[in-house]
């Protein structure tokens, strides 16, 4: 081996803001390259929602009634969209805990890049994936007869709210990813995530659940997004008439905001605690 010249490489002079954006984009690009290198991973990630739509739509669908009438599959689809968005925080958490365990995050922190890019870039990649998931889900839903009868603007608004929910959960994922010690233990989070999506209006109207469970389900942030999406898509809503269900559109904005306000600082604090 020959000697390596010193300080031969410095980058072009640019502003701080330029490098912040560049750092974020490079982290995003890295996460997306992962999918390109592991096509099977993306097949699983996108295939799972399709299978769920078909399973819930046809296995449950034949037995389910929607209070106030309406087709169950029409009712179900916004629920499946929101469930997929909600479970997405698991992949954020997994990616973060894997990086932390491998020392990749430490390497990033020892570099002159913007520290915030580690999380922001990751989140941006997650949103790109979320868009792909929603597209696939919507196409599957259309194929089995689901229709968004509310008009294109309203449909866009519904998808926007779904992405907003996913956005707020990025910070939950980053925070959890920095909390749990190993990817294996992060897998245990499914045991929490699963009930959170089930005890909501995603699959069953809260008014059909026992009193306290129905209340919990109605107040679940996932439910607000689901109900708001149903309204905007023009699908059966099956509102139980409670305040939170009647103000679903508002709450579908408020909940993600609250989640972000709580978990973004928590994630930042956790990140800073790495240097304690």
């Amino acid at each position, binding site marked *: 081996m020959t000697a390596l010249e010193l300080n031969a490489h410095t980058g*072009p002079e*640019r502003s701080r803001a330029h*490098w912040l954006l560049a750092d974020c984009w490079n982290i995003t690009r890295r996460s997306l390259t992962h999918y390109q290198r592991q096509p099977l991973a993306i097949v699983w990630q996108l295939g799972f929602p399709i299978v769920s739509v078909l399973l819930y739509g046809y296995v449950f669908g034949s037995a389910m009634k929607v209070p106030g009438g309406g087709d169950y599959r029409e009712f179900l689809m916004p629920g499946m969209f929101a469930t997929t968005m909600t479970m997405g925080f698991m992949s954020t958490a997994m990616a973060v805990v894997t990086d932390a365990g*491998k020392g990749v995050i430490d390497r990033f922190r020892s570099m002159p890049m913007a520290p915030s890019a580690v999380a922001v870039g990751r989140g941006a990649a997650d949103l790109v994936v979320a868009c792909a998931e929603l597209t696939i889900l919507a196409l599957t839903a259309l194929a089995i007869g689901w229709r968004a009868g509310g008009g294109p603007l309203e449909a866009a608004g519904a998808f926007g709210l779904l992405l907003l929910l996913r956005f707020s959960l990025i910070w939950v994922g980053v925070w959890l990813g920095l909390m749990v010690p190993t990817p294996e233990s992060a897998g245990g989070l499914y045991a929490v995530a699963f009930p959170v999506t089930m005890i909501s209006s995603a699959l069953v109207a809260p008014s059909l659940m026992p009193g306290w469970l129905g209340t919990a389900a109605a107040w679940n942030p996932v439910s607000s997004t689901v109900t708001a999406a149903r309204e905007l898509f023009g699908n059966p809503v099956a509102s139980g008439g409670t305040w939170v269900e009647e103000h679903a559109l508002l709450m579908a904005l408020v909940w993600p905001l609250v989640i972000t306000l709580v978990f973004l600082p928590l994630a930042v604090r956790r990140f800073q605690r790495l*240097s304690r």
Partner: protein
Amino acid sequence: MSASGYAVLAEGVVKRYGGRKGAAEKRALDGFDLAVRPGTVHGLLGPNGAGKTTAVRVLATLLRYDAGRVEVAGLDVAREPRGVRGRIGLTGQYAAVDEVLTGRQNLEMFGRLFHLGRAGARRRAGELLERFDLVEAAGKGVTEYSGGMRRRLDLAASMILAPAVLFLDEPTTGLDPRGRGEVWDAVRALVAGGTTVLLTTQYLDEADRLASHITVIDRGRAIADDSPDGLKDRVGGDRIEVVAAEAADLPAVAKAVGRVAGGGLVVTDDTGRRVHTQVSDRVAALTEVARALQDEGIAVEDIGLRRPSLDDVFLRLTGHGTDLEVAA
């Protein structure tokens, strides 16, 4: 390089863990001092749990410290962490590369994050792949790499900026002899290029081979600071060891061994058949003793050379062995 003239300077550094919520306080660094001259390889030698990783993480801006002063590449670590980050490279105790990406993708990604720009990152990745002998594996995923290759990729990633100071935390732990050799070659090449290297290790022979200066760390404190030769002199250098076949031959064996003794004592240990002494020229001593024993027709059970181990160093310097708690 700095006002102090050192590439790395640590004075009285204290790093405490715990001590909150009733947990017992633990001083991972307890008044740690270190001075590394520019352009040298400096070994930080210590057993598991001595505080090596903590020291490296403090120096590399990853960990805040509670007291003391730390300067790296002429900058105060606490006051200008970002400036320090632009002048250092770090290879942690575990290879910190992206397992999913290929070797080339890893280096290009880190290069872009080091702000080399797209073209600059690509060019630098090409150079480093060549330098670290990874051209053939460049397009393969890191999961397919051997331990040595992974380490080399890790080293390459920490060399992207051709940093003024490079920290290597136990770069060969867990590698087979071939992997170790590969990493050693890479480190030597780096230093030939002018980089200052601080290398932590649990192996005296590794520090001996690579470093021009060694600091021995024990319980968060530097307990010795010397050249490898100076350290070995204090510990007692290489030894020749002969085990006699018959206890009766012992005096004759001791006499033969005595001929090569480099001024030190000839020690007969309590088994009653083993004789050893310190030597300066290992191979010559071995040849001479073997010939002398053969000439006199003395049968031996075993004859060999022994390098002092980290255990020997600790026994001599601290009076206790390396049997500290086993820690990360």
